Every structure is written in C-alpha cells, then in structure tokens.
C-alpha cells in the first residue's frame, strides 16, 4: 500500500452499495480523492450524491444493507503506518474511531445524547481511549470546552444538551471530536443546520482549531460559499461519483466539469445577475433533476442534463482524467470546456 508521505487519507475507486431485494442503490460508485495532512478537503454535491455515505464508509459506520463493494480507503495513522479501512473488521475500527478519526454531524440538535451532560459525553470519549480517572476526564472535558470557546465553560460542563443552543451543541460536538486529538476530522455538513451568523462562528472556530491541533479535515457540504471559505481542495460529487477534484482556487476560477460549472452558475450573484437598473437576468439553471441512483444511465450520469452532451457520453462511464496540474475531471469533453 503506497501512500505519499503528505497524504493522510486516500480513497480509491470506492463503491458502497445498498443492496435490496429488487434494486441496488449505488450510493457511492467510484469515489476517488486524496486528502493531504493538515489540509481541508471539501466534498460538495447535491442532496443524495453520496457525501454522507462516503464519510460513513471511512468511519466504518455504514448502516445495514450498506456495504463497501470494492475500492480502497487508505489511511495513515499517527505512527505513520497505513491501513486500508475498506478491509477493516468492526473491532479494528473501534480503536481508530475517536482516537485517529473523529466525526461531527449535521444535526447538532440530535447528535448528542439527551440523557447525559455534555461534560459526561466529552469525558466518555477521553475515558474510552485513555486510562484516565473520572476527575481527570472531567478536567480534560472542561479544557476542551474552553478550546471550543464556550463562554463560562465551567458552568456549562454539567448542562444537558437541551439546555444549549444549536451553535453551542455543535461546539460541544467539536470538543468531543477533538478530545483525543485525532489526526483526521470528518465533518458532515456541520453548519448546514445553523444560522449564517453561527455558521460563520463555527467555520472560524474550525479554522483556528486546525491551526492549533493540526488535524486534517474532510468537510462535507453542499454550500459552495462554505467551500470557498474553508477548503484547500474540493471534490465535487454527482450521483455517487466524483466528477471533479481540484484545489479550491483553481476550481472556482475554472471548472473542468459541466456539472461544477452549472452548480456555480445557478446560485444567484447580484453582480452577475442584476442589471444596473435593477432588472433581473434569468438565472442559469440546470434543466431536469438528479436521476435516481437505483437506475443510473450506463454512461455519464449527468448527461441527460448536460449542455455539452454528445452521443459518446451515453456509451461508457467517463473515466476520471487529469485536466490541469492539480485537477481531475470525469468528463470526456473536459478539455473543450
């Protein structure tokens, strides 16, 4: 298993399927990306494009009919040895989770257990992985609450989750995730449920903590604005597949895939979409809607909605091709775009 020294996580052609009696949902069907140490990789895509399934596959937390069909998930732990998480047994995951890879979720309201105080829940994380006394775990939990900038941390330690606001809870989740200083943090839409002002606080916090703890972040989102704010690298997903990966500046400057291009064009932008007299120009919009993942066309999944489509698009799944220095794209016409 080869993995460049500076890469902490490399997902290679991952396929995670949900097999039912009649149909197979290919939720993740050929996802490939690399995450460099200390960097933030943003995964963007519309609802149902397989972002969460990808992150759960990495954590080994897939729910029942879901299973990794093929592919590799190479992960470099603290000691420098590389593991293929796609072949991990549940028991092996246990030592890894929390300690090496931690995760925060979209819904801060429900991701904390309502029956335990936040102090308990952070302390539990520490006690699971390190031989600490109760008092010590509590002290460390308090430290973490301070790290995530919860005001008056000492008095919030014994609060129950329902006594906190969404933003505070998300901070607690982050404190818990970082309690054992993992080297990789997976954040699955951590700000989607929050208000813009709180979202800004959390993004800010994550950036600062990254500088402080040095962890790499896999940041799942569907908001391109957030991507622009936080990511070093961006992976764009569509219908379970990676359609493009590029450094964030490159991606926003030039999109190699028609889908990425459409995605950027269809969010309203006053400078672009409003005339000087206030009249509106029609927004660019991608026609049609995402195909159901149980019945994907054999070729490019975006083809039916694509403005650049040619007959060849329907024939075979386009491969991921390198188009720029650091950009890969899954489009046979990337070079023409």
């Amino acid at each position: 298993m080869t993995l460049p020294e500076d890469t902490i996580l490399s997902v290679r052609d991952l396929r995670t399927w949900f097999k039912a009696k009649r149909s197979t949902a290919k939720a993740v069907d050929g996802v490939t990306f690399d995450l460099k140490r200390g960097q933030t990789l943003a995964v963007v895509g519309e609802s149902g494009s397989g972002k969460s399934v990808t992150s759960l596959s990495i954590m080994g937390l897939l729910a029942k009919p879901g299973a990794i069909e093929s592919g590799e998930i190479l992960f470099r732990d603290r000691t420098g040895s590389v593991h293929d998480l796609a072949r991990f047994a549940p028991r092996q995951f246990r030592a890894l989770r929390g300690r090496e890879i931690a995760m925060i979720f979209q819904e801060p309201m429900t991701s904390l257990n309502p029956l335990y105080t936040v102090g308990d829940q952070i302390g539990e994380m520490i006690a699971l992985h390190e031989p600490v006394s109760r008092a010590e775990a509590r002290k460390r939990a308090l430290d973490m609450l301070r790290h995530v900038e919860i005001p008056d941390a000492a008095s919030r330690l014994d609060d129950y989750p329902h006594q906190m606001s969404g933003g505070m809870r998300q901070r607690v989740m982050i404190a818990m995730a970082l309690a054992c200083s993992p080297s990789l943090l997976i954040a699955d839409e951590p700000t989607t449920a929050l208000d813009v002002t709180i979202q800004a606080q959390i993004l800010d916090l994550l950036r600062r903590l990254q500088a402080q703890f040095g962890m790499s972040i896999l940041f799942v989102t569907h908001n391109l604005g957030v991507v622009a704010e936080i990511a070093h690298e961006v992976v764009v997903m569509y219908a379970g597949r990676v359609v493009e990966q590029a450094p964030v500046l490159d991606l926003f400057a030039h999109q190699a895939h028609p889908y990425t291009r459409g995605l950027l064009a269809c969010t309203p932008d006053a400078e672009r979409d409003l005339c000087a007299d206030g009249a509106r120009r029609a927004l660019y919009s991608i026609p049609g809607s995402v195909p159901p993942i149980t019945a994907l066309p054999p070729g490019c999944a975006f083809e039916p909605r694509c403005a650049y489509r040619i007959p060849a698009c329907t024939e075979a799944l386009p491969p991921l091709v390198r188009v720029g220095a650091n950009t890969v794209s899954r489009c046979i016409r990337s070079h023409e775009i």
Partner: protein
Amino acid sequence: MSPVEAPLLSVEGLSKRFLARNGRVVHAVSDVSFSVRKGTTVGLVGESGSGKTTAGRTVLRLIEPSGGKAVFDGVDLFSLSEREMKAYRKRLQIIFQDPFSSLNPRMRIDAILGEALDAARFPRGSARKDRVAELLSIVGLSPDHARRFPHEFSGGQRQRIGIARALAVEPDFIVADEPVSALDVSVQAQVLNLMGDLQKRFNLSMLFIAHDLSVVEYLCDDVVVMYLGRVMERGPSRKVYAASRHPYTRALLATAPIPDPTRRRERVPLQGDIPSPLDPPSGCVFRTRCPMAIPACADIVPPVAHLGGDHHVACIRHAELA
C-alpha cells in the same frame, strides 16, 4: 414617508405573542411594519426564529394577530370577521417551503388545483379541465400530469404545483415562505426563474421570506431584516445591500459565505447566540450581540429612523454607520 402610490399592503405595528407550554409568552413578532407596493416583491430575511413565518402567516390571518394593522387594498384585514375575511382569501395566497408536506398526498393534482378553483368559484365542467391544464403549463408542467399523485413528482415539480395552486385563484398578493430553501441548488434556480417570470407576467405583489441573502438580493425590490421578532432595517434592496445602516444587517451581509475563495474575508463573526424569544433582551433586542452596543441600547427600544427613500432603520447609532 414619501409614497409614490398607496401600497397594496401596508402592515403596521404587527405583533404576535404565543403562549408557550409552561404559560410563558413567546414574543414571536413585535411591532413589525412594512409595506408592499403593487407588482413588487419584498424580501423578509432573518435568522431562524426571528419571526418571518409568523409575520407572513398573520398577515394572511392564518394565525390570529395579537396586535397591529394590515391594510390591504384599503381594508384592514385584521378588523374583518372570519366571514368577511373569506372574500379576501382568494386575493392573498401562500406558497410553502416544504414541497413534500404542502400537497395532500391522497389527492390527485387536478383535485388539488380543483379545490383552489372551487374557492375561486370557478365553474365545474370541461372549462375547468382546460384551466387545470393551463395552470400546469404556466408553471412548466405538462397537462397530463393532472391525474397523478404528488408522490410521483420531484421536489422541484411539487413546488411548481404549489405555485400553480396559489395562482389558481388569481391572487394579487402572495406570501412565499422560503419556497426554494428545501430544493437542491440545481433546481432552486429553475424555481426562482419561474417565480420571477410569473411575478412580472401577472403583476403580482409578493412577500418573499428567505434566509439566503443572495436570493433576496436577486429577487426582491425591497427588503425587511428581522431579528428576534423585530424589524432592524428595511428599505429598497439596493440601498440596504449597498449601504446598510444597521449593525445587524451589516453583520449578516458580512458573514454570509460567498462562493468565491478570492474574496475570502478576514472578518469578526457576531459573537454569542440568538437570545430566547421567551425573554428577549430589554431595549434593542440585538444589543447582546451587537459590536456597537452601548449602555443606552438596553434602555429603550430604538425608534425607527426614516432615512429617506423608504429606508428605515431601528438603531440609535445608525448615524455612525453612514
């Protein structure tokens, strides 16, 4: 005030209090005023819980208001009896956020639209079928979708049906409560375009509720910024976006992420959380998070200052932001 013409809808001093479970009072909307001119769209923005939905629904009398006036076409809707209100129902319509629960899953599309047509006293018979087909084509659906059930449509299509239902009674005024928030970005643009077109085509007036600032900037002529049930600032979009005079609006605009990494700003996000509407701060409700707060802010509810050109702001230090 310098009205060009009398607005179609003018809301004054609207407030709504809810009784919460344990007998405490939620001040969902307090003393909100704004007006909607004929053929224009007013955007209502604010963080969640700021009372946008409540304001929109009270105007339509879907919730009974606790106080204030809503003068629509010269009549105060709040002073009407439930029966008198009936006559106005078809002139005021609403579009919802959730495309899944806004259509009765057990009714076919023609029945859903038919219900609206009944309300408009549209005669039964073959004309009705044509009208349903017409409505469907107005929102970009095919007439043979009429016999389907809602679950057979995608989210975007359902939202179009919701719009068709609102249009069926040929209303003058529509409250659109976050109509695109639940949609995928790629579909969102389709619906926004449709709404923009229809507004022009039928000369509709619209109260457009959203929390996405860029959408409001794109679609709305005027904007009302709410925080914790109160209006912080309102005025023509261009003015508010370009030259906001309220620290909250400024903070909102500054913190909204823009999809452009080159414009990544080093900025200080607002500190703290939104206070509970159960006991809002005294004086200016925003003062607890306001970077410009001074002790005086706690004492009085800031009076609404009229800055000309229909631009109003509720901040005692608005002059310093000029």
